[in-house]
């Protein structure tokens, strides 16, 4: 009675060593400009070739500016060099590249699924920790370092230990203004930032079954923020209808056989997990982080916590440090915290549904004085779709900036970043010290919550904005 992960894993074992290390076959490999150049260079130096170039997709995302002039010039010579290197490596190896002028360019974890490249039952890797996103399709997908990128390029395989398995069941229905982001932030707050270390996590239960593919991707995306490398959701009709007709998905008779196979991909009724957790969706309210770890999520109705109330001295020290960095005092109501910037984007929350939800809050309202708010679609296709629906007009009329696709202000690597001391309401995935720029302060939240913060100028319970 195998689990979903076990079923997929077993199909991909090329050979297994006596110590349990499996040589795992990799079906799909996505590459971006930051973590791949050293891998391609090492291959060249060793005289090795990319084994299956047509199984790969290359796309620049981390370094790309999100302003309209990016095709004319990229100011930063190092960023330019990385993007050019990706281009050259892709051409030399015969790998498909979605370049900056391609409508399909975008954040790798947005663009990969959009093409239909990530299928149920597949294995997929990328030199990026948020590869866990792709597990939303019922794929075993995980982030790797550059040495493993090189290994996968050369051999189409990786040596991997079987992960321990955790199932997180989310029964119940999500309430008014509660999104997938709030679900995953609550999960991380519950299990802790290291709680999933060593585990592959399957998400199950009524709330997950009701989620769209976009929502499932948001949940799986932040699995790594709980320490888990893989997040996965069993494929179902929602998955199949998302994939149907996508360019890289099977078609015609092959589609029928594929779907028949995919219907067998679920954890059997008697399957056992190394750990089980359950978090009721109906008890979750909109979340926001106060500190410098994604586990520092609280209901927006809460207050900044008091470290003195925690017994563990290590936890207390971390909280005190986080409060100093964030310049917050215990007992402050979260809704009394003002923001300078608002960022709606990233591989967590830059898909079409995220933009629709944020636009619904922005419609007919204005970005508060003194606040700079930007919306960065996850890909050119998301941008085009949003524009077809008029979402760009809603954002622009409300005073948001409407940008070109890329990782943008998620990680302080391209021109979009916080200045020291600036405070940001962000739909991204990490609130670490300096993540969005040196000295920048990040509060993680959903797209609806971020849009609400933009129009009020402070952290706000979006339920009150929409109800009022």
């Amino acid at each position, binding site marked *: 009675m195998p689990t979903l992960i076990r079923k997929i894993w077993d199909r991909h074992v090329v050979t297994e060593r006596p110590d349990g290390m499996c040589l795992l076959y990799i079906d799909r490999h996505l590459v971006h400009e930051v973590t791949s150049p050293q891998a391609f260079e090492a291959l060249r130096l060793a005289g090795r070739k990319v084994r299956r170039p047509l199984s790969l997709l290359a796309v620049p995302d981390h370094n790309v500016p999100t302003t309209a002039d990016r095709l004319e010039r990229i100011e930063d010579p190092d960023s330019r060099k990385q993007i050019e290197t990706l281009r050259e490596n892709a051409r030399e190896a015969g790998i498909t590249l979605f370049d900056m002028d391609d409508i399909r360019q975008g954040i790798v974890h947005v663009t990969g699924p959009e093409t239909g490249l990530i299928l149920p039952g597949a294995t997929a890797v990328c030199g990026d920790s948020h590869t866990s996103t792709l597990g939303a399709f019922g794929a075993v997908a995980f982030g790797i*370092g550059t040495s493993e990128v090189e290994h996968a390029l050369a051999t189409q395989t990786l040596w991997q230990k079987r992960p321990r398995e955790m199932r997180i069941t989310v029964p119940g229905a999500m309430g008014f203004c509660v999104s997938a982001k709030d679900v995953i932030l609550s999960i991380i707050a519950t299990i802790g930032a290291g709680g999933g270390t060593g585990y592959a996590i399957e998400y199950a239960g009524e709330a997950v079954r009701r989620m769209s593919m976009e929502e499932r991707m948001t949940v799986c995306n932040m699995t790594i923020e709980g320490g888990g490398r893989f997040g996965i959701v069993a494929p179902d009709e929602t998955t199949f209808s998302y994939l149907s007709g996508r360019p890289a998905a099977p078609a015609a008779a092959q589609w029928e056989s594929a779907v028949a196979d995919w219907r067998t991909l679920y954890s059997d009724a008697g399957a056992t997990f190394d750990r089980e957790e359950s978090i009721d969706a109906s008890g979750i309210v909109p979340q926001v982080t106060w500190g410098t770890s994604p586990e520092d999520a609280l209901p927006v109705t809460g207050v900044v916590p008091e470290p003195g109330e925690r017994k563990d001295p290590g936890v207390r020290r971390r909280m005190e440090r986080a409060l100093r960095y964030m310049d917050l005092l215990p007992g402050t109501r979260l809704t009394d915290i003002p923001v300078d910037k608002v960022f709606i984007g990233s591989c967590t929350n830059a898909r079409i549904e995220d933009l629709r939800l944020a636009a619904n809050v922005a419609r007919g309202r204005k970005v508060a004085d003194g606040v700079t708010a930007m919306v960065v679609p996850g890909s050119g296709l998301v941008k085009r779709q949003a524009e077809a629906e008029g979402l760009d007009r809603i954002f622009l009329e409300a005073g948001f900036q409407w940008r070109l696709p890329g990782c943008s202000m998620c990680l302080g690597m391209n021109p979009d970043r916080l200045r020291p001391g600036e405070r940001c309401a962000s739909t991204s995935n990490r609130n670490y010290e300096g993540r969005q720029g*040196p000295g920048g302060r990040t509060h993680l939240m959903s797209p609806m919550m971020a849009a609400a913060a933009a129009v009020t100028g402070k952290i706000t319970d979006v339920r009150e904005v929409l109800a009022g």
Partner: protein
Amino acid sequence: MIEKFSTLRAVAVPLDRDSVDTDAILPARFLKTIKRTGLGKNLFHAWRYDEGGKEVPDFPFNMPPYRGGKILVTGENFGCGSSREHAVWALMDYGVRVVIAPSFGDIFANNGLKNGLLPVRLPSNAVRTLIDRLQGSPGSMITVDLPAQTVTGPDSAVHPFDIGSFPKECLLKGQDEIALTLQHEDDISWYERDRKNKTPWLFLDL
């Protein structure tokens, strides 16, 4: 490529913090390189230097007794977050070859093994004792013995640690892992032929 590792006796640096993420080890703006070298100067940049670029005197790596230490002893969940192997390259470029912690981010630990930076998991209380001893007498040495799988603290207390037999062998030999895998070329080709029949949709060319 894996840099060989067997035994190391060196000054150990205590960094008494939990969940040190890879953005803290090496901020993203220093990832804009196509090389693996030269990253050590920006290791722990935000903690090591102030806004004017001057060294922060009480950050352990800047304190004279710890300067140039090759062993880092730190809190749980070290290396969580981003998969950037640059974090490992930065530590190694500085000279660090061993990190001792109660737990690690999975990808970081794996990246360490692929380069020859040994992640050693010890129980929380053992790590606590080591950090206290190192802070009590700055500049003390620790010995890490990979063949014996032991850490010997400044007080001569011996702590055994676990490591898989495969990564251990690779570290001891400085193994080229890709060359090892390519010995399975027949298995890989056989697998591809078999799966192309069973699940052809996974082999569609992009």
